[in-house]
């Protein structure tokens, strides 16, 4: 507990749409695999947005590597990657170009340019896409033209290719069939795997499906913008779940 990666202190957030957080405090340490549970509208997405710095809390402070978010440089910020609930891929671009976008943090503007012109190298992107069970045939397909589950995996590949330290994922298994879902979950949770790709060692994944809780070592339950429980996987009891659902 001496050196938290991410730290929220008494964070409150309120906006017009009433997605609220109420005095949430949270510490995430290196190597933790956290599952975030809660009903729809409990504040999971807001929490994730605050964790990755997309929205600023009205009150309280967010620290990454013990530094205020505003004071981080781009390199430090790029240590967080996010899989959004609504994916947020760039339509009009192909799947592989979208995955390559994940490399923008490490590459120069020339790379961005080449990527758009479709003349950059896609080797790395292909490697990550294959890991995510995407077939070769869809690599160069336009995002508009692939199915929901395929899009989901493209988004996952895009976040993995960033090779970040922390992965925040907002319901990443939504569009996947049960077998794929558990495959992907294993991929996200196991640091070193046979594919020799680097997976962030710290993860926070929000999810609904309780059958996928294996492999996590910490469970956080949320309700109405507050954290109801925050405990180790082994201590999770049935009544905890009843409280939040």
């Amino acid at each position, binding site marked *: 507990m001496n050196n938290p990666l991410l730290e929220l202190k008494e964070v409150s957030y309120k906006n017009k749409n009433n997605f609220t957080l109420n005095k949430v405090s949270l510490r995430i340490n290196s190597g933790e695999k956290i599952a975030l549970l809660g009903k729809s509208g409990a504040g999971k997405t807001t929490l994730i947005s605050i964790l*990755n*710095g*997309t929205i600023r809390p009205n009150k309280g402070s967010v620290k990454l590597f013990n530094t205020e978010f505003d004071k981080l440089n*781009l*390199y430090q*910020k*790029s240590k*967080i*990657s*996010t899989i*959004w609930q*609504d994916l*947020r*891929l*760039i*339509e*009009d*671009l192909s799947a592989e170009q979208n995955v390559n*976008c*994940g490399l*923008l*943090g*490490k*590459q*120069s*503007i020339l*790379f*961005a*340019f080449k*990527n*758009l*012109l*479709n*003349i950059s190298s896609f080797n790395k992107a292909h490697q990550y896409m294959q890991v995510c069970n995407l077939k070769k045939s869809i690599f160069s397909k336009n995002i508009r033209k692939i199915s929901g589950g395929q899009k989901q995996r493209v988004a996952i590949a895009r976040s993995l290719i*960033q090779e970040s330290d922390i992965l925040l994922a907002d319901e990443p298994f939504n569009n996947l069939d049960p077998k794929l879902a558990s495959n992907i979950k294993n991929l996200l949770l196991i640091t070193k795997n046979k594919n020799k790709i680097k997976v962030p060692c710290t993860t926070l994944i929000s999810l609904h499906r309780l059958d996928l809780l294996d492999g996590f070592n910490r469970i956080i339950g949320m309700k109405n913008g507050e954290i109801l429980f925050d405990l180790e996987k082994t201590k999770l009891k049935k009544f905890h779940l009843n409280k939040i659902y």
Partner: protein
Amino acid sequence: MNKLKLNPSSITFLPILVCIPLAYELFINFHIGGIELFKEFIISALNPRINNEIIFTLVKRLNETIFIAFSSWLVSIIFGVIFGIFSSEIFYKILNLPIFLKRFLNLFLTFIRSIHEVIWGLILMQIYGINFSIGIIAICIPYVAINAKVFSEQIENINPKTIESIKQINGIKSSTLITLLWAPVIEIFKNFGLYRLECAIRSTAVLGLFGVGGIGTSIFLSFQTLNFRELWTYLWGLAFLIIISKELLKKLNLSKTSKKFLTSFVIALFCISLFSLSFFFYFIFNKNAIPFNSINNLWILNFNFISYDFLKLLLETIVLCLLSTGIAISFPPIFILILNNKIGITIIRIISFLFRLIPPPVLILILLMFNDPSISLAAITLGLHNAAITSKLLLSNLHNQDNKQYIAMKSLGVAKRSSWLFGLFVIQANSYLAYCAYRSDIIIRETAILGVIGSVGLGWQLQESLSSFAWEEVIVILFTYSSIAIIGELINGKIKSNLT
């Protein structure tokens, strides 16, 4: 009863109400005294003058037109994209720049847009004399501003969530920016940029101001002497050019081209922009500007000038703009809705092509053969010309659009017209309105060249002041034009923010 709810689709249909006063005024002023001339005009269309001499002139003028139109189109697209990005919110969001810069730039662009290219040409000519490049620069100046507006408006349509997600990757700001903007810009370029080429070609038809003015010179002169057969030879030549250039550009499909071609394309674009920029600087600094000999009395404003009459003209101009914008917005969807089958659409395409082709001054003269000069007549002329343009955009956007929802509606057993309305048009309504908004800017500046015959609005006063070389008046009028445009823009923004 439910209150009428305003949404993009209803707003596109509502302006049809302007037809009530229009039809009334046109109806009471109707006469058929000019039937002979009209017959002559129509017959000449089928029987243009063709002989060696005229074909020779035609080819020569077309060559000039191609050159002027193509270069001004390229330059205005490239700089339109650049300024469009500069004046879009994303740019300031990603680079964390103060937003007032954007407002300032927008104001500046509106000012530039609201002044007709012919007027720009005349003003530049006062400073630089008769010069071939003025023709191009005069077209480019307002076109850059127009393109900038269209591009920035479409760029604002990018889903803000996508912006956040790419921002989250935390790459260099500039690479984030181009990654986000690339696809939309290419998309707009496909839908809109190619169509701008047609505009540029048509614009040279109005512009023909200077020695090497392209086909506009010929059209204007033959129209001036009412030499209809000659006029049609030139108009058909222009039509031919527009069609050919469109077909050629269609072949150039950006998404299917090879990588090598794309790279060279980008390099070429880069070179052209560098080249035109350096040309611009060369032009400004190397050419000795001729002293504006009336500059001294430029600031001694004649306050008598801004009198009751001036206010009346101003009011007329505003009414004229509103009426013709109403026609330009509402006619295309209504006609497409009514004539919603293959033959009907083809008829609309042909008619709108003709209305685009015939320059508004010619159109108004022909309409005057049946009607007395009035605001309504000027409004219907401008309105029809612009409706022809908006209908083209609407048709091509509808054509490019995914028709999933249309098919879904039809499979529910909804009538063809209703399913067109809800399955195709509703989706398109928002961007159609955005195009119309910028069209209204163009209508404002077109009143400058149209108001003369019917002596309606400020256009007449502008011509009179220009031809008397009364620059202090010209400046007042131009500022009035821009203020109309700016106010229009503000109202537009209000409507838009109320809709969303």
